């Protein structure tokens, strides 16, 4: 029905005689043979092709942060499909049918299941999401398809935050959101070939104008606890997850984010004495270390000595059900942490558990006794048997080595055996953060390989090997995970403990003394413990170059970045319920709770809505200023007894004035003629001038 529709296609097949009109129809077929179509230049691309290429670029940019953790097949599929779709767009070729896509989707589902052993959960979900997204680009026909791509895109942006919420990721994702919105705007510009920049400007404008709403909602939207338990696989960032698998990590990815901040009311203890205790792992299946779920009967039997060390902790949300407290913080009143809103208890393995995962920032104070003893003092074979257990058939050479040592020192006490093993570690082992993987394909015999062959690793290698050797000699032993040390320099009085301070050490049970801490890592890399250096990898090339030129500059850059990052962490990432309540208190609420937040939010939003409605009302009654002026003029003329009609132009009014008043009305009529010139004449002005109205009023009053 529309004249804008393209002229109807010529009926019948294009003639073979090189008819110029028959050309466009068969060009795609000819080009379809080339693998890489001829690139016509960005400005000569048809509009559809340009939009598709832009959308593909945005999608690739959005998925890019996932490349590190997507399975290889998914990565290949993504790259392949995106490149192929780009080729189809440039060559203006037909999209594949529905059935091949469904086949690929099914294959991808099978592969996902094969890779992740499930279709649910975070990793499998993200893999599927990426597959759906890239396959959907092969189906971009109608506007509805485009919308599905946008919505999937926003989801993928969100999933990126599951892995990292750093400034860099945030900046990347901001670009993604902008790109997706731009593509959405483009999809709603049906006419012609609108420039990308214009669509981008509109998208930016929508986002920028929406920013105040975002800020209000972000600041005031009540932060509530998770509505249902999230699968734990999303959470294990460090060794505190309650299990440990030695040798599986080739290289430690250092996470410099803050685990908690600590302040001491009194002198700061030596940092080598600061062990922040997490889960103790006593059960070993040959590959993985697990917690002893219910340590039998016996209490912690904690016995403290000397002066307490009072301290205060601001714990970042770890999403783990535990508090990494300083060893040893007893459960007695006055020493135990004072917590609101979350229940915490001391396990018999001296670990502080909470009733639910810590999902908000917690701030509390407690007192620890660095000098302490715990565990049963006398032999209790029923309790201790668990801690000498080794699964048969694993690490036979290490067991043999331990047997040989035991035979060499038949009379040795447990302390002497510990000393013998520690001296072995001290001679000939190397501390490194990039040890490579250990063990065979299933992770077995990793300790054999570490202890007897390669002899390099970091804390988890040393502590696990140490515990296995001690158990092989019938000395009860277990691994303790947690944090060790603090940053050397405080920030505003608070010492940082970063996730890179995560550590694993060992405890052996000694008759008469109970559990005694042994840190084999300290034997090989004392600086790791004594100077409390957080695990720090080799610097990159750029950092080394800067350091070579100007060491101060690098330090300054790093400090500036840290400060900036710290602000980001403080104000964006760690903004939680307690900050919301602080804000309300500053605004004058006394003991606010979440209903106050909701009320304030509702009041602000409805104020905004009312303001909008008021503006709409005003706008509805707003008139063109010329019309308003004419109405006033007509009113004035009617006072003088001159009849007017709503359709009269100033010139017509002048004529009426002349007719009605004769020579007396000449001044008035001249003013009206002047108005006519101002409105319609050669020197017309955009808005009525006040000077004219004054002159007119003067003429009318005469």
């Amino acid at each position: 029905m529309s004249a804008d529709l393209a002229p109807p296609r010529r009926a019948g097949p294009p003639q073979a005689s090189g008819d110029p009109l028959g050309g466009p129809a068969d060009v795609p077929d000819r080009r379809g043979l080339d693998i890489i179509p001829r690139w016509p230049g960005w400005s000569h691309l048809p509009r559809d092709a340009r939009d598709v290429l832009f959308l593909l670029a945005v999608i690739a940019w959005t998925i890019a942060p996932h490349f590190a953790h997507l399975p290889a097949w998914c990565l290949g599929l993504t790259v392949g499909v995106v490149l192929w779709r780009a080729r189809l767009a440039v060559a203006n070729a037909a999209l594949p049918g529905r059935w091949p896509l469904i086949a690929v989707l099914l294959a991808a589902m099978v592969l996902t299941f094969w890779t992740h052993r499930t279709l649910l959960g975070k990793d499998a979900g993200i893999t599927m999401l990426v597959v759906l997204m890239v396959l959907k680009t092969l189906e971009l026909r109608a506007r509805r398809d485009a919308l599905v791509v946008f919505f999937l895109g926003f989801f993928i942006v969100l999933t990126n935050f599951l892995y990292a919420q750093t400034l860099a990721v945030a900046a990347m994702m901001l670009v993604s959101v902008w790109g997706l919105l731009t593509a959405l705007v483009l999809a709603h510009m049906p006419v012609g070939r609108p420039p990308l920049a214009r669509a981008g400007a509109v998208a930016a404008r929508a986002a920028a104008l929406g920013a105040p709403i975002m800020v209000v909602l972000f600041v005031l939207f009540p932060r509530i606890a998770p509505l249902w338990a999230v699968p734990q696989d999303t959470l294990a960032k460090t060794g505190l997850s309650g299990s440990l698998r030695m040798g599986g990590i080739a290289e430690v990815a250092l996470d410099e984010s803050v685990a908690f901040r600590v302040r001491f009311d009194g002198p700061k203890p030596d940092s080598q004495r600061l062990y922040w205790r997490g889960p103790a792992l006593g059960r070993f299946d040959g590959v993985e270390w697990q917690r002893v779920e219910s340590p039998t009967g016996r209490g912690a039997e904690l016995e403290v000595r000397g002066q307490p060390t009072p301290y205060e902790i601001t714990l970042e949300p770890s999403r783990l059900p535990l508090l990494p407290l300083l060893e040893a913080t007893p459960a007695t009143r006055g020493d135990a942490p004072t917590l609101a809103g979350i229940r915490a208890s001391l396990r018999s393995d001296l670990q502080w558990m909470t009733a639910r995962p810590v999902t908000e920032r917690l701030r509390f104070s407690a007192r620890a006794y660095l000098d302490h003893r715990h565990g049963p003092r006398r032999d209790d074979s029923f309790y201790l048997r668990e801690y000498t257990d080794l699964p048969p058939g694993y690490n036979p050479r290490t067991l043999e080595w331990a047997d040989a040592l035991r035979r060499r020192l038949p009379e040795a006490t447990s302390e002497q055996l510990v000393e013998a093993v520690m001296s072995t570690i001290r001679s000939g082992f190397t501390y490194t953060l990039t040890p490579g993987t250990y063990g065979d394909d299933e992770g077995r015999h990793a300790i054999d390989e570490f202890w007897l062959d390669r002899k390099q690793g970091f804390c988890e290698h040393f502590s696990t090997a140490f515990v296995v050797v001690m158990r092989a000699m019938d000395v009860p032993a277990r691994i303790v995970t947690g944090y060790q040390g603090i940053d050397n320099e405080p920030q505003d009085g608070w010492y940082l403990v970063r996730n890179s301070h995560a550590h694993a050490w060992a405890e052996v049970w000694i008759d008469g003394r109970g559990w005694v801490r042994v840190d084999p890592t300290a034997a090989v890399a004392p600086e790791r413990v004594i100077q409390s250096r957080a695990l720090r990898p080799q610097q990159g090339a750029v950092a080394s170059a800067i350091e070579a030129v100007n060491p101060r500059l690098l330090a300054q850059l790093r400090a500036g970045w840290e400060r900036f990052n710290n602000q980001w962490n403080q104000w964006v990432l760690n903004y939680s319920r307690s900050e919301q309540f602080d804000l309300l208190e500053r605004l004058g609420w006394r003991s606010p709770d979440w209903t106050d937040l909701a009320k304030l939010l509702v009041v602000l939003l409805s104020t905004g809505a009312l303001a909008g409605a008021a503006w709409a009302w005003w706008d509805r009654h707003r008139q063109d200023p010329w019309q308003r002026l004419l109405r006033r003029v007509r009113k004035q003329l009617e006072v003088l007894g001159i009849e007017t009609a709503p359709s009269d132009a100033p010139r017509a009014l002048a004529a009426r004035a002349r007719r009605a008043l004769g020579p007396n009305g000449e001044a008035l009529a001249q003013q009206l003629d002047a108005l006519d010139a101002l409105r319609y004449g050669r020197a017309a002005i955009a808005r009525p001038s006040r000077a004219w109205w004054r002159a007119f009023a003067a003429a009318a009053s005469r």
Partner: protein
Amino acid sequence: VISLRQRLRAWFESRLPRTDTWTLTQRNVYIVPTRAGFMFALVLLVMLLAAINYQLNLGYVLTFLLAGAGFVSMHMTHNTLRGMTLHLKPPPSGFAGEALMMEIVLASPKRLLHGVGVGFEHAADRSHDVFVDVPGGGQSVAHLALVPPHRGWHEVPTLRIETRYPLGLFRAWTVWRPASRALAWPAPERPAAPLPAAPASAGDSAATRASDSGEFDGVRAYRRGDALKRIVWKKTAKGGDLVSRDHTASVQRELWLDWQHAHATGTEPRLSRLAAWVLAADAAGIAHGLRLPGVELSPGSGTAHRRASLDALATWS
């Protein structure tokens, strides 16, 4: 339920004034979320749940950023239409069953407007809407095809101007009842019956030669009143003076197209035949008159005469 809805809609439309110039204000621009808008709200809800459950502050930021952008887009969608002025040019006449192109002028006082769709309110689907961009401070024209089903005067159907720009989450529209009417001429009979012979009484021998329509016998100097298509442009270009084709028929014959001679069954087929004859006579350059019961147009030729004849056929009752 449907009939109630239709009745409501009819009642709503009957309240609208009929006008050829329609200025869009807060009062006559309506807006609702589209299906995509509801989908977007659902996506935001799911994203909010994810942000809560994984305690992702950046998830909150993203969700609220999109919510803000979506809210702003509502105003942008509404603003696209508000302030625009629509004007319907007098629709041309055409034959029944054939499309006649209406020109709708859209004027935007301030901003450049994108993706404004113009279509009929009662169209079965919106895929025939014509989309235009309107330059700021300028105008653009949308051509809408109207197919009148039968001859006679037709009111221009209610129009709908709508937009989903910029994000497609909301749809703003206005309903406009133009005042203009379009005249549809009877559809000419196809294939056309041969023109009736001139009455015998007019009868010199030349008349018999002329039932064909385009053979010309020679050329002569241009005389005022000759139709443009009779001018021999090639000769004119060479010589400089206007030269016309000379039809013996056209000067010698005067043809009456009479209701009585259109032997077809029924009123409309007769009118169709007469319309076809008017066209044929006009194409042949034969002066023709029209006789209908109660209406008589004296013989003449040219565009104006043709138009008058067709108008008479269209409005005869």
